[in-house]
């Protein structure tokens, strides 16, 4: 991204030429003033709603602050962090989050690839119709989607199990089994693959046709072309989505809350990291402790992002034409 910026900005059209009276220094001061003026909404917002709160969260994490008894707030050092190491709910929530991520990410990425490849295939008639229809469920608000799926997965009247029984497959109690709840969440998540499909599709459409032609001459079939041409060429898009999904698992909240009314059930199987944080902050009023949880979450996400981007060169192919 940085390269894009410098290239564009080093372009020939810097307005130096059109303001002959100004000396360069004066002009650039004029430019800089305007630039800060335009960027200022975000800068102010970043300070007020991001930077200061993050630092404040760190501060709160060293206290026993509770909104019920704010006057009793004391500095308690690293007690909250020590408590996290022995709190079984923290270990559970981390396990739940990781378990879900390990199941959801490969399946969702694979399904997204399948959808994108399908609506990209010349052999599919009505590509744009299917593209629109595959995207459409992503527009359904999360609460409505959760309630619809809770009905579909109902063991008595839900259509999913009736369908599975009709074709002779086992019909699990999706939402009340500590095992099946994860496939259930993944399945529900597939309804929202639209964004992934569209970004992967755009990546696929950006692959130069000559590469496929060259592969054809070498006798490559569809699978070989997909594996050795398409996948490497869209690896930046895949990587970007993978990063967002890994981090997304640590932000997961809405669907788990809607499906199980925020209980974290069955038997804490949907007690995602974020749900545990929410419960501590807003149900148990342990905001100091929740701040510590939030800071650890921040560090986890930060480290994941650094590691992923730091090692991206190993699995992402960037075409060497300066576009990336």
């Amino acid at each position: 991204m940085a390269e894009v910026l410098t290239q564009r900005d080093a372009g020939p059209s810097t307005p130096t030429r059109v303001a002959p009276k100004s000396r360069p220094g004066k002009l650039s001061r004029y430019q800089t003033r305007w630039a800060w003026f335009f960027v200022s909404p975000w800068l102010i917002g970043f300070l007020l709603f991001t930077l200061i709160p993050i630092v404040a969260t760190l501060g709160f994490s060293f206290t026993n602050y509770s909104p019920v008894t704010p006057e009793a707030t004391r500095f308690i050092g690293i007690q909250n962090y020590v408590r996290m190491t022995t709190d079984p709910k923290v270990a559970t929530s981390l396990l739940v989050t990781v378990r879900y991520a390990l199941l959801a990410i490969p399946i969702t990425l694979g399904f997204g690839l399948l959808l994108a490849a399908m609506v990209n295939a010349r052999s599919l008639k009505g590509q744009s119709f299917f593209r629109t229809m595959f995207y459409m469920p992503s527009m359904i608000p999360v609460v409505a989607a959760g309630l619809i799926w809770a009905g579909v997965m109902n063991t008595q009247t839900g259509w999913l199990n009736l369908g599975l029984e009709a074709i002779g497959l086992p019909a699990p109690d999706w939402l009340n089994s500590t095992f099946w709840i994860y496939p259930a969440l993944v399945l529900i998540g597939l309804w929202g693959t639209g964004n992934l499909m569209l970004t992967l599709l755009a990546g696929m459409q950006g692959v130069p046709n000559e590469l496929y032609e060259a592969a054809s001459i070498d006798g490559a079939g569809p699978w070989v072309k997909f594996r050795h041409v398409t996948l490497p060429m869209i690896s930046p898009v895949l990587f970007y989505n993978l990063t967002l999904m890994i981090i997304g698992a640590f932000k997961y909240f809405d669907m788990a809350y809607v499906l199980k009314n925020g209980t974290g059930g069955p038997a804490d199987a949907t007690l995602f990291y974020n749900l545990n944080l929410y419960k501590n902050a807003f149900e148990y009023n342990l905001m100091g402790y929740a701040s510590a949880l939030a800071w650890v979450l921040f560090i986890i996400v930060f480290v994941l992002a650094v590691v992923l981007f730091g090692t991206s060169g190993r699995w992402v192919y960037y075409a060497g034409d300066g576009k990336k």
Partner: protein
Amino acid sequence: MAAPRVAATTRQQNQLERVLVSTLAVIILLMFLMPLGYMFTTGLKSDAQMSDPKAPVWWPFSQQTFTYNGETFPVYKVPTDAGVQHLAAVKKTRAATTFIDPANPTAGEIVWEGNWRTLEPVYFPDAQWQNFVTAWNELNFPLLFRNTLIIAITGTLGAVISSVFVAYGFARFNFTGKNALFMILIGTIILPVQATLIPTYIVFARIGWTNPFLPLIVPHFFANAYNVFLLRQYFMQIPRELDEAAMIDGANPLQILLRIIVPNSVPALAAVSLFHFFFAWNDFFSPLIYLVSRPELWPLSVGLQKFNALYGREPNMIQAGALITLILPVAVFFLAQRVFMQGIVFSGVEK
């Protein structure tokens, strides 16, 4: 000699591929639509059908009844000597049931030996359209809708205006630290809300802002990374010559933004507006935190979730409510899908 045969096999292969891909696409489409079918038909079912395990599940049905001498009796499928007949049960006992024939009530009573519970009821399709009216009222939809609109529209205005300014700053100006600032801006995409949540919540609660919607609106007046990124990409495609021409005419950067950049970016602005509008429509976490104790201020997301908590035992009402809340976003999506999907591609791939 060999060439035509090769062409034929290729054509056959293409044919096969076409059939396979189309079949798969249709199967996935049906699976995607299945939950909506469930929602729609369940929303039309009667309470009686929901609690009747014998009733067919794939369409709203009611049990056939017959009114005789001012009383209403259920109709069953009764095996008789003359084949299976649809008869109304007027007197039920464990050992025998007395029926009359709705087609010929004057023929008198027919006694059938056996437990009536083993008989299959006769159903007829009967959609309860009034369920949607009931759900609309029970949800208090007009109020939820009003609250959602207030939050979504003001938030969208703020998000679009502020993001236009910031994106223009990043697209057209050079200043020290610009690249670093831009990287930080993009970095905020991965930042979990929870990292900033608690102090923000405490401050909003402490200030006790007279308008409780403000925590859901004000933060969006300070631009966000997705919008800025998308708009900046778009702005950079607008030729600088247009800016320069305006500059020669004496326009300052603000005038250039309003007269050149904004009119040339209508699709991008539309995409950003839609994104924010749907984000606000969909947002569940923030209203849950800030408005949970104020039912009169709930938006649709929280309202529907609480409706579920209240009506959990009436799945038909829940599905009718879900349908009411998703119809607008889905309809707008179909109307504006081009702008919408292009916007996603624009903001998702270029990174």
